[in-house]
């Protein structure tokens, strides 16, 4: 019991220091707000307001109807262009991102059923957006075609109906394909990682620099008590920050938690053993706060890049995929997305549970052992 009291005085002291430092309040509330607002809107692969230009060499009612059909979709912004412009120039001068070239005779070929072709010139600098834009245009063209067929059938009811295959795709869990649905849980995972690792990486080194660590070492405080006294407050702060982030995500992005809140907290708690352990490990190995920052950033950048935050892990080369299998953040991010978006339960996340648990236990034990050696 007395041992708990020692830990309690540590926790009290840490919280007093935290409350008194403005930086910490920024970490708690400022960081989630900024990260969510900036990254939530910026890290997006949604393609909106595509600048679309038409080079209509046909000038028929059909071609005008085709152009008209793009007017209704809010994803496109039709830019007026000189009809003698060249598609490549429109793209390279940033006037348009997509140019649809309607060849002469288009309407004749199309209406006669001979089949007709259109040329689509897409700005391919950002491959992802280009593919998405291409798909949008194809979608609108398909719709245009279907409508025309129907009209023709009504006009000439005796003609043989043309067999039609319609693809009806439904996007599960994210019907609007809103990028933020996927990005926000990712940002939250990154936030939890950054906060916990930074706090713990600086913790001991700061006391080393202040000289207070030496003072602590002449006291009968045990290493376990010292570590617990340091880590419990950081665990609490990070979990508090997580609450703030969840609430903000709900308010700003209308993000609803599909799964269990407590399951999310359970996984976060387990995951924090890994990041806090790594932070403490860094803190015992380095001599100054600057070194601690350097090392923790180094680790975090690798964690984040290989986590599937920007690029899905399954799009990475096999060797990198294999490496990212050992990246705890990658698993935590998966868990967050699954719970927040799909509402997965513990059974469905069993693999991630065991991976995160063992990673936490291993890294935390290593940091406890190396902490002992240091003192």
């Amino acid at each position, binding site marked *: 019991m007395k041992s708990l009291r020692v830990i309690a005085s*540590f926790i009290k002291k840490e919280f007093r220091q935290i409350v008194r430092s403005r930086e910490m309040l920024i970490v708690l509330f400022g960081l989630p707000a900024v990260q969510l607002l900036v990254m939530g809107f910026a890290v997006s692969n949604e393609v909106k307001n595509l600048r679309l230009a038409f080079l209509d060499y046909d000038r028929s009612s059909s071609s005008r109807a085709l152009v008209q059909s793009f007017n209704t979709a809010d994803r496109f912004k039709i830019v007026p262009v000189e009809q003698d412009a060249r598609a490549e120039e429109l793209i390279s001068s940033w006037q348009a991102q997509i140019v649809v070239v309607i060849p002469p005779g288009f309407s004749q070929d199309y209406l006669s059923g001979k089949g007709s072709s259109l040329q689509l010139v897409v700005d391919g600098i950002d491959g992802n957006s280009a593919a998405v834009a291409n798909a949008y245009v194809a979608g609108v063209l398909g719709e245009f075609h279907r409508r025309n067929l129907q009209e023709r059938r009504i006009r000439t009811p005796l003609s043989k109906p043309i067999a039609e295959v319609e693809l009806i795709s439904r996007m599960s869990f994210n019907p609007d394909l809103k990028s933020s649905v996927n990005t926000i849980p990712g940002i939250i995972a990154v936030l939890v990682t950054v906060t916990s690792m930074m706090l713990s990486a600086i913790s001991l080194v700061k006391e080393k620099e202040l000289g207070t660590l*030496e003072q602590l070492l002449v006291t009968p405080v045990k290493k376990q008590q010292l570590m617990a006294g340091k880590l419990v407050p950081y665990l609490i702060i990070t979990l508090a920050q997580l609450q703030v982030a969840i609430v903000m995500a709900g308010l700003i992005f209308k993000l609803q938690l599909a799964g269990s809140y407590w399951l999310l907290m359970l996984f976060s708690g387990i995951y924090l053993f890994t990041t806090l352990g790594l932070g403490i490990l860094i803190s015992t190995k380095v001599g100054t706060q600057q070194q601690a920052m350097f090392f923790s950033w180094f680790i975090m950048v690798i964690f984040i890049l290989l986590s599937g935050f920007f690029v899905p892990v399954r799009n990475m080369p096999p060797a990198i995929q294999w490496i990212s299998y050992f990246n705890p953040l990658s698993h935590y991010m998966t868990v967050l997305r699954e719970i927040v978006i799909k509402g997965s339960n513990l059974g469905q996340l069993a693999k991630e549970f065991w991976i995160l648990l063992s990673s936490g236990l291993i890294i935390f034990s290593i940091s406890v052992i190396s902490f002992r050696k240091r003192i």
Partner: protein
Amino acid sequence: MIHTIDLVKEFGSFRAVDNINLDIAKGEIFGFLGANGAGKTTTIRMLCGLLLPSSGSITVDGLDIAKHSEQVKHKIGYMSQKFSLYPDLKAIENLEFYAGIYKVPFKKALANIRDVVDQFGLTDILSSITGDLPMGYKQRLSLVAALVHDPPLVFLDEPTSGVDPQARREFWQVINDLAQTGKSVIVSTHFMDEAEYCHRVIVMQDGREVVLGKPAELKDQHQAGSMQELFLRVLGENNAKSV
């Protein structure tokens, strides 16, 4: 109270402390004198368990410090050379924290330090943020923090460096009173006038003992008028010997 046998500390091939034998009694003020790098701080750090000796043994109150480190640490108060309280806590919060670490109820801790706090005139600044205090107050507060658990053995590593003469005298008054109540006080200093206040002193050079004894007797032995003179004389003799 504290007893060492052939205490040695080596850092690689460098012998920072070389065969130091000490026997410090209860209620004694024992001074470590020597130039910078003479091995004072290293010896003190070993005595309070911050450094492991390379060889030799230390017992505190009959307990081997290597085997009973936790029990021994309860008996030790330590004021480091470098100011080492939390600057972002209030003075009283620092004291509360250390009381908690030593498992002393805060009320009891306050009773333990009441006299020293009064003597130092610290009562009014206890609710100030520690980092905002002037140097003199910080140093006094450090000493007070080392006393929250009423340790029988107090280590003060250059407690008066950077303190004005008036405050130094006050400091020594407190050290004297602590010894009167039966505490052993081990002080390192490079102010030779302060050495006069010690019951016994050891003069160290290159990790070794040059002389050890009562200031008055040492001055007689070496026909020195003051501690300053004694210090320079014994170090000179020592250098002459080693050449």
